């Protein structure tokens, strides 16, 4: 089936009244949740999953995609208005967005963010439409060894690219993988690490991990900051209008960062956070007067916003065409697919074209919604930030608990959720990143399966893993993804030391 024909079918799904309604619900709910302090796309998707049970899978996934980019947009809103980025992907937005809001131009900043997001999102959806089918066509020939190598790359990339210590990221990934081994082993039927508890036989549900490590752990921080009143005093948002000169300034960053952001989003491990930072830095480097950056520059706001939305769609390329998530957020998204009985991967486009193309087509609508609906509604939606912290804490707790209960109907999972909330809190206290954990947990089962399938097929010969150019190439990239940052860090610290020495003398 050609891309046009597929897209037509997708448009039928996305433009049905159900499709439009649920994209709208998804985008608005995502914006609401993403705007709340600490709750990012991972929590937003995880909280919304129970709502999709029993829904038509294509409509449900169209909604989840809406939640995803709605949450990214919501995060930028709180970055701009309060200098309180909901997620790391919008930290760079606050560099110039918040100064602009302080000048009384919050409305203008929000409009720039929305238009940049729209452009970034739309351009990258077009790219997604072109690249995802091409990648699926290549991936159809992949066997278990290549899949194993791909997932290995995904894990090492997220570990080396996540903020903070690489060794800590690797440790969390390993522990996440270990948690994934709990339950009945699919190939031999041995029950592993269940301690005779029948509730653990099927393994731990990914929602328990996602909501525990992200939403509940975040509650602990909200409890600590409950007396913080800063969210209450937001001023008037001001006019949303942009002048022609403003548009002219935005044009450069928008066109460049749409492509750069998309590419970074496709790469495993990179994602919205890195795309937004690289977008910001690269625009600052080529700007005529870089001194304006950090003081409310239009370019400085437009660049990260374009990039993070472009990366959001870019991240769908490996997810849809390979079935392999490249980041914590897409890992949870994969969980949402699996809950609905859809296995993304190279066969998705052939088997369930309405899902594949429906999601892509819905992204066009979703982006339009973000622009024309969310933007005028922002002054009202922003009121959610005024919800008192104690109330917010209780409500988020109930949402997380019910989200888990609605899939397992057992209180055992709820106690587990509480435990993982505590673990997530400890991880944050000691600066262990949580995203590698969730990615490793979701990839873990798939990785073990493909590893053992490859080895079983080869009669236990390890060489099968490095017997073809695709796998070897992927391993080389994984190793590079480690070595390059380490060498660069060394060089940077050496340069800094040299700097300090020259300053001291």
């Amino acid at each position, binding site marked *: 089936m050609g891309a046009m024909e597929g897209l037509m079918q997708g448009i039928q799904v996305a433009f049905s009244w159900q499709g439009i309604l649920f994209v709208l619900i998804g985008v608005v709910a995502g914006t609401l949740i993403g705007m709340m302090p600490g709750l990012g796309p991972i929590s937003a998707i995880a909280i919304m999953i*129970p*709502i999709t*049970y*029993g829904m038509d899978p294509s409509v449900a996934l169209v909604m989840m995609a809406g939640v995803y980019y709605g949450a990214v947009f919501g995060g930028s809103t709180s970055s701009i208005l309060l200098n309180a980025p909901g997620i790391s992907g919008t930290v760079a937005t606050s560099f110039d967005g918040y100064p602009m809001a302080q000048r009384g131009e919050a409305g203008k900043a929000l409009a720039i963010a929305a238009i940049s997001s729209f452009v970034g999102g739309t351009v990258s959806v077009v790219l997604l439409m072109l690249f995802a089918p091409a990648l699926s066509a290549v991936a159809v020939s992949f066997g278990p060894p290549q899949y194993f190598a791909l997932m290995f790359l995904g894990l090492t990339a997220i570990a080396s690219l996540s903020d903070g*210590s690489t*060794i*800590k990221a*690797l*440790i969390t990934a*390993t*522990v996440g*993988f*270990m948690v994934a*081994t709990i339950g009945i*082993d699919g*190939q*031999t039927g*041995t029950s*592993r*690490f269940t301690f005779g508890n029948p509730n653990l036989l099927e393994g731990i549900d990914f929602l328990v991990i996602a909501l525990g490590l992200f939403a509940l752990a975040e*509650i*602990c921080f909200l*409890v*600590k900051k*409950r*007396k913080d009143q800063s969210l209450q005093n937001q001023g008037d948002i001001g006019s949303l209008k942009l002048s022609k000169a403003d548009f002219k300034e935005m044009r450069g960053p928008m066109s460049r960062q749409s492509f750069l952001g998309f590419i970074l989003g496709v790469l495993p491990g990179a994602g919205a956070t890195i795309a937004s930072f690289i977008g910001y830095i690269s625009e600052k480097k080529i700007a005529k007067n870089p001194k304006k950056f950090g003081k409310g520059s239009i370019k400085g706001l437009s660049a990260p916003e374009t990039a993070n939305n472009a990366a959001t769609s870019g991240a769908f390329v490996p997810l849809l065409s390979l079935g392999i998530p490249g980041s914590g957020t897409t890992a949870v998204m994969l969980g949402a697919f699996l809950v609905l009985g859809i296995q993304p991967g190279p066969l998705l486009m052939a088997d369930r074209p309405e899902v594949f193309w429906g999601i892509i087509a819905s992204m066009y609508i979703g982006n339009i919604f973000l622009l024309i609906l969310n933007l005028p509604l922002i002054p009202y939606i922003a009121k959610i930030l005024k919800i*008192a*912290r*104690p*109330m917010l*804490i*209780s*409500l988020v*707790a*109930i949402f997380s*608990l*019910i989200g888990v*209960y*609605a899939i397992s109907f057992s*209180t055992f999972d*709820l*106690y587990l959720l*509480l435990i993982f*909330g*505590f673990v997530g*809190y400890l991880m*944050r*206290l*000691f*600066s262990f990143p949580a995203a590698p954990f969730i990615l490793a947990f979701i990839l873990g089962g798939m990785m*073990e399966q493909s*590893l*053992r399938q490859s*080895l*079983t097929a080869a*009669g*236990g010969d390890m060489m099968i893993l490095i017997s073809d150019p695709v796998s070897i190439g992927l391993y080389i990239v994984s190793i590079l993804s480690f070595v390059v940052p380490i060498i660069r860090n060394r060089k940077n610290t050496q340069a800094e030391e040299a700097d300090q020495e020259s300053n001291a003398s």
Partner: protein
Amino acid sequence: MLKTLNQKVSIFLILFAAGYLYLTYNLKEYPYVPVDSDFVPKILGYLLIILAVFLFFDKSSETEEEKEKRQVPKKEMLVLLAVGGMIFLYIFLLEIIGFVLSSMLFIIACSWFLGYRKLVTTFLVAVLFPLIMYLSFNYLLQIRLPQGVLPF
């Protein structure tokens, strides 16, 4: 002996990995499978030990920001424990008295405990939020939340 935080965490991780490996070596073996179920867990256990050793010798000190984040006053710790206890109680009561009643109690107790003093708002939210959630889950989404002692 254990000077840095990294070293303490590292020891904990090594002990955790050792416990995990112990369980792994006690897994049932199948004679005719080329790759048995303990293959991957063994790799993971040893990998974690190696990584923990690296962490032990990791010299990078914490940034000020990280240190500040880790400082939790004792009083706050108690507050956190209390909230954890309330969630525990909520889970315990969920299937006994039902979703609506336990959520009402939880919202009132938790918000009051954390210092929210607007009674009217609290009660409005505590009544409306669980009811709307319950009705929409049960009747719109067809997901039965615990009914408990209420007749609907």
